């Protein structure tokens, strides 16, 4: 599997994503600088890492969505390539409209970093085939703006089409997200955005090892 990681100014989980991809694929991903970097055409998976792109002083991800590299990201998506947006990456995917909905400020108005129990809503996706459906996994979160919101029709459609991939465990919604949504898929099932950080849960640290499945699933799919 050939992978790439987009690096925006003040992306800060780019190295973590790089390490996770190298751990699973055995090959270093191409690191693509937002200004002049190139996403190679034969890339199977593009990861948009967490962080505070352009400082996120504006709405999270809004600046990044207008960055030069986004044209290439869209071209990659149109080719049917896989895209994984984590945390700030999820926000950017919503801002680019590659995924529906928005991520608003957490209901608590506070940044929140904690181990988060998630329910795997569907194991029948390219991002979750390594998990069992309806299983509960723990993956850390760390965000200020993870309160997923979309209109009712969009939410119904996402659920109806099996595009809600991860939900916060019942009663443990950390940010007020609609219908406890933690991660969603694009219509073609090739793009996933999620607030939790699977790259921080690859084993050997406080984050645990439950995030490994996301990358293993992608390795199997690509």
């Amino acid at each position, binding site marked *: 599997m050939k992978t790439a990681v987009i690096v925006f100014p003040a992306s*800060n989980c780019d190295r973590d994503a790089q390490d996770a991809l190298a751990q699973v694929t055995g090959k270093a991903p191409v690191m693509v600088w937002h200004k002049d970097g190139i996403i190679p055409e034969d890339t199977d998976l593009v990861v948009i890492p967490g962080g*505070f792109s352009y*400082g996120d002083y504006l709405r999270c991800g809004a600046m990044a969505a207008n960055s030069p590299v986004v044209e290439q990201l869209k071209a990659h998506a149109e080719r049917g390539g896989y895209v994984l947006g984590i945390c700030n990456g999820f926000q950017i995917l919503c801002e680019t409209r590659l995924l529906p909905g928005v991520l608003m400020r957490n209901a608590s108005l506070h940044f929140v970093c904690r181990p988060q129990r998630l329910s795997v809503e569907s194991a029948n996706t390219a991002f979750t085939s390594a998990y069992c459906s309806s299983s509960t996994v723990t993956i850390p979160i*760390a965000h200020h703006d993870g309160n997923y919101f979309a209109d009712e029709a969009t939410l119904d459609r996402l659920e109806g089409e099996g595009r809600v991939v991860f939900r916060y465990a019942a009663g443990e919604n950390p940010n007020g997200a609609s219908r406890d949504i933690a991660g969603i898929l694009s219509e073609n099932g090739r793009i996933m955005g999620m607030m939790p950080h699977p790259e921080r849960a690859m084993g050997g640290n406080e984050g645990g090892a439950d995030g490994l499945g996301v990358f293993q699933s992608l390795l199997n799919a690509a």
Partner: protein
Amino acid sequence: MPDTSAILAHLTATQEEAQGLEHGIKADEWERLVTRLGRKPNLVELGIYSVMWSEHCSYKSSRRHLSKFPTKNARVIQGPGENAGVIDIGDGQAAIFKMESHNHPSYIEPYQGAATGVGGILRDVFTMGARPIALVNALRFGDPSHPKTRSLVAGVVAGIGGYGNCVGVPTVAGETQFDAGYNGNILVNAMAVGLADQDKIFYARGATPGNPIFYVGSKTGRDGIHGATMASAEFSEGDEEKRPTVQVGDPFTEKLLIEACLELMATDAIQAIQDMGAAGLTSSSVEMAASGGANGEGIGVIMDLDKVPQREEGMTAYEIMLSESQERMLIVLYPDKIDMAKAIFDKYDLSAEVIGETTDTGHLVLTQFGEVVCDIPVAPLAEDAPNYDRPWNEPPKRVALDPAAFDVPTDLAGTLLKLMGTPDMASKRWVWEQYDRHVMGDTIDSSQSGGDAAIVRIHKTNKALAICSDCNPHYVSADPYEGGKQAVAEAYRNLSAVGATPIAITDNLNFGNPEKPNTMGYIVKAIEGMAEACRELDFPVVSGNVSLYNETDGTAIPPTPVVGGVGLLEDISKSATLKGAKPGDLLVMVGGIGTHLGATQYARSVLGLKGEALGTPPPVDLAVEKRNASFIRDIIGAGLATAVHDISDGGLACSVAEVALASNCGAVVNISPELQGFPASHLHAALFGEDQARYIFTVAGDAENALAQFAEARPDVPMLMLGSITDASEGLTFAVDVRKDQTFSVGLDALRSANEDWLPGYMNTVD
């Protein structure tokens, strides 16, 4: 172009003693200044003297006492005097770390004050070539009932999170305490730890004449002018008006600055580098000049201030030199590297300009609008700064507190719950959940487990750094010498409790007005106590910061010398935390039965004692500290311990409770006067006493023999089988009198709620 002649006339006008006083230069210092300079200074020069001779920059009240600290051991590469301390962690790598206060600005503007504190300490570390890998903060607020406390907590925590989370450095440990003594002056001490290759460490020293001076980072604005002077004065009512002296942080630019500097540092372009912290362009240029030269003999600097990137129009030389705008660096480059360096900073859209040159004149020369506005010798600014031997009084000795004078409470379960829910002991989840603790992927253990020290892996290795921060200001108030010793010993213990070898400390000495002999007495004795502990434990000071004048309307803060400790774990698999205990494990104590209630959490919260009545703090026997710590490290190294915790605030009972909460299990503890041979009237001291050099640990039930062998080999270490770990549903049971079969029990849920509910409840209350 405005008429520059009027501005220049203003800047170069000769100043008199009265203006000196307005700049915080006292009469004797004015004499000194004029004598050394051989004339009266102009306005720009006076501004420069005032910041360089401020307490904040010159350490004029503490320097002679700081020299008592040991600063070397086999692993120290760089001690105090540079931006941060550097220690050898093997394999050609170094850990670089420092702690620094941002107390005064955080009280005036908590969000930005705390945020820029984090930014400043990060720059101290990456200036030296290190990638920052961990942040720690030690916070002290006023009484929870004080009307300002809640908003200060909210602002400071949001500010630390806002900055640290964005730059992508995990905040892994810290402490948060409350005391009425901080009502008028909170303490915000931030520590950063970085990782560098030993052959790529950069210093402020060593610049030679004839090289370009390169300014990088943010543009210079009018923020923070005279911040260092503000931080060197007492507060009085209405000082919120000083808000313009507080800087505004931009973590986005800091993140870019980190990446750009580390990219430049990977090349051979830099001769010397210094961040612009307190006193901005002034202190950075003066410090580089003063420590310049091949042999540190000092060099000169000439800078054209018109070339300094500026955020606002019409700034004067005075403002440019005194601005404390954040996220700026000054670099002495090799001349043929300018274009390459510019290209790197251009990639990150950061300002980067050559603004001057190093010279052999030994003078700081500044020009603006083509005219010289400052020409002063560098040496008097740095080396001739005042160095006071402030008069001091021996702090009063207290009478020891006799536990037998206080009845053992009848409701011991309630007492334990009360202690676990006091503001100091309560869980700080509300705080650390707002900090990203996991970015960079190397956090093995953080505040999340309530552990003694955070464990941060050295990237792509099986080694880790252990990091902690400690101070018990109640002990220091009670006896500054013993309290100072204790702060160092506690850090040593906390690092040992995770299995790490303690290497060195950074310190942050927070005190009141040093011009008052009573306050100065606490400064002197605390430093001497710390120095003794550092010496005996081979745990030297490699960097630090002094924050004085923490006083409002004449009332000083409790003396608070905070210690940031760093230790090395050679093998992560041989480490311990609070969270590994399992039902069936044996519970063991190292150190004797508790006897000491003076100055403890119990004396304050349960007995309700204050001030003198609290008595003396627990004494610290450094030889015993060393012995017990090495035993604990050996137990962990042998893979015997499933969980380890030191016994500190709240004594044995609270220590067991914390392990039970972290491991989510119960425990049975036998602590009976009859069995262990102590007077029944001392049961409260046995449960809640804070005698030093003590630990608890758990071992698997089937490892009893291995443990016995260990104990046999070390008969000098007092070890006591206390009981066992049980299922969470069984809660904690303390058997306190075997013959009468007397026990008290606390359910784990009740314990958790006592520990977890206080802070969120407090923060979510609306006045």
